[in-house]
């Protein structure tokens, strides 16, 4: 029997790979590809009459397979279905790290899930508060309420936009450049940053269109996302490479941190590095870049 380490709210989540929980062949060793998180799906990937089989397979997998450092999140069925309560019991009993709340639209949704998670933790003797939550925002209402959603629970580590449903409710389709989702992505990002939680972009459905995928990932990074949902192991490498700080960014961050340590000793607040004015927020960001570089395994310095 596997005992998973206590989940961390703040950790590296560049890639969250969806897998159908019903397919033992897929989930038995989903960690080998190196995505930061896997999302075992009980929702859309599983046929209505197979929910029970999927829960069984998920429970056995998490109890018996050592996923190591790969985070195991479960996407449960929507609160408008008859499945979500049993889904929550299954997730908590299995010892998975967290729950992705599908079609989340309000703080109330989060509270309901949290209540059931707590009850299940008590029922199965799982440490209370252990099971994390994240919200999938799939509708305009969810986006409008993003801030209240991500601040609704201490368990909440982040939110993700779900493009498929969102585009349908906006009467738009996938556009090159992503203008159809620009406002929603931006608004969700602001809410997440304001709440101090992570923010993830939707999956890119066309696995064979690697060029379109690359463009979207680059835009995600420029916009400030922490990571992305993915649907194929083939997508992992590019996301990881893109979200890792570049050599240039690392070098600059190192320079800032070193100079800050020197300047602070001599009592200077604002000064210039490479001809640009810098102050305290710059150093905080520089430390973040170095921490991210370390987490991504691309840091070779000694800070």
């Amino acid at each position, binding site marked *: 029997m596997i005992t998973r380490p206590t989940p961390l709210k703040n950790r590296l989540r560049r890639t969250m790979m969806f897998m159908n929980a019903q397919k033992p062949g897929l989930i038995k*060793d989903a960690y*080998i*590809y190196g995505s930061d998180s896997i999302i075992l799906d009980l929702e859309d990937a599983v046929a209505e009459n197979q929910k029970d089989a999927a829960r069984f397979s998920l429970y056995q997998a998490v109890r018996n397979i050592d996923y190591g450092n790969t985070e195991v999140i479960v996407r449960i069925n929507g609160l408008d279905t008859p499945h979500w309560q049993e889904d929550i019991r299954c997730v908590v009993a299995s010892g998975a790290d967290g729950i992705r709340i599908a079609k989340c639209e309000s703080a109330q949704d989060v509270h309901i899930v949290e209540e059931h998670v707590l009850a299940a933790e008590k029922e199965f003797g799982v440490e209370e508060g252990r099971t994390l939550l994240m919200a999938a925002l799939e509708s305009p209402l969810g986006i409008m309420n993003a801030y209240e959603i991500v601040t609704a629970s201490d368990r909440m580590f982040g939110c993700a936009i779900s493009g498929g449903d969102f585009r349908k409710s906006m009467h738009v389709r996938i556009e090159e450049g992503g203008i159809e989702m620009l406002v929603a992505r931006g608004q969700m990002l602001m809410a997440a940053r304001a709440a101090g939680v992570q923010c993830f972009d939707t999956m890119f459905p066309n696995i064979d269109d690697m060029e379109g995928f690359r463009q979207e990932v680059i835009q995600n990074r420029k916009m400030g996302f922490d990571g992305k949902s993915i649907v194929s192991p083939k997508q992992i*490498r590019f996301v990881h490479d893109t979200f890792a700080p570049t050599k240039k960014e690392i070098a600059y961050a190192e320079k800032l941190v070193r100079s800050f340590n020197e300047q602070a000793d001599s009592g200077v607040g604002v000064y210039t590095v490479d001809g640009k004015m810098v102050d305290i927020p710059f150093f905080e960001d520089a430390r973040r870049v170095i921490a991210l570089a370390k987490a991504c395994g691309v840091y070779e310095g000694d800070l």
Partner: protein
Amino acid sequence: MINAVNRDIPDELLKDGKEVYQGKNYMDGKYVKKDSPKSRRYVKPQESKICESIREACERCGAHDGMTFSFHTEFRDGDYVASMVAKVLVEEMGLKDINVAATSLGSAQDIFADYMEQGKIIGAQTSGVRGRIGETISAGKLATPAIIRSHGGRPRAVEAGEVHIDIAFLAAASSDCCGNASGINGKSNFGSMGFGIHDAHYADHTVIVTDTLVEFPNSPASVSMIDVDCVCVVDRIGNVDKINTKEARLTDNPRELMMAENVAAVIASTPYFKDGFSFQTGVGGPSLAVNRFLEDHMRERGITMSFALGGTSTPICQLYDKGLVKHLMDTQDYDQGAASHIFKHKNHHEVDLSTYANAANKGAYVNKLDFVVLSALEVDTSFNVNVITGSDGVLRGAPGGHPDAAAGSKCCIIVTPLTRGRMATVCDDVVTVTTPGDCVDVLVTDYGTAVNPLRPDLIKCLDDAGIKHVTIEALRDKAYRLVGTPDKLEWEDQVVAIVEARDGTILDVVKKIKPFELD
């Protein structure tokens, strides 16, 4: 007698100078007296060597009971010629006590299984056995044990006279009326004829079987008319679509692609990965896919490959076209892209099996290999590889050039998933040793990479490059944890096949499997 890979070789097999395997360089420096064919003189000029039928060709060559006939298998599962000829020999001519020497045997030759059952075919020498033939041999239906030889071991045995070919029946995509034959210029082009060329030099008689007769002279030719007795023209020599079998497919499987990417990273971490390096891939999905990932590493370093060796596929031809590979030394073409590339490009060369891999000549191409990437059915904790028997002990695979390239290369990488279904690929003891562990350097699986402790230099390379690796025992433990530890197979005493090492010593034997009985 226990050999160097810890296999017990029955003493009755150790006669007429046969020895057990004693390490990869045991035969180095020894001399061999070469066999020669008894060749018929055609003094009087002949206008044509074309025969009306295969039977006529067989009769002209004096086919009779007890002879050894050879075939090449450039068509892989799409070969028609071997079955066609065997049918004539057995059913039309009523021959018996036949020995077959083929470069491989598979589903295309299923009819051989019938003739084995009937006792018409009494011996088989081949680099591999798949399908019904494997099951039939494993059931002990041959009068003498089958002999499994590598692609390099075959020409060695032919040259040493251990197998003397009476008639070679060689499929050719095109031929002229005098037997200048080639793997192209016809309607069933398979490209390189590397598997057949050597036989034409050493067989007493050579019959070319083609479906495309071309004007004389068919030049350049892979097999020359000076070695050919007869030419037969048939409707179709094979199905080119079946050359690309599942063993030779191009993968889109993320697991295999990941392994291939990791193999490429291992290659790039070694000192041999420099301008002018040489490279070979085997035929499994992940090994073939390595070609794709090598390109990025080569461009990053700004280096080119001096030669790629062995079975050739479209991806490596594409690297050639991009100027990243200087020479393709081609023994067989896995797909039509490669088959139509050879001979059309100046440095895409055809090589025969002796030039490719024979350990008993004065230096084959495998000896100049830096890297080879190969697959495996099983690998044990001594890095011994099995590619011939399944987990049920039945013959179902082909060493091909595996043992040759592994022995000759500076860095041999095996790539295989850790488990297949309920079977652990990495295990305590392989069912049959086909490539000795002292020839294998790195194992890449989907669950991690292990380096042979015999190669501390490579361990350091991986460490320096930040490539994670574990012990092979850790991989075995992981495999057994996932799928359970299998019971040992139980065998009867009868040896059904002898696995010859490339130097001619005995590496292992395959015995008849004991029928499974429920308690």
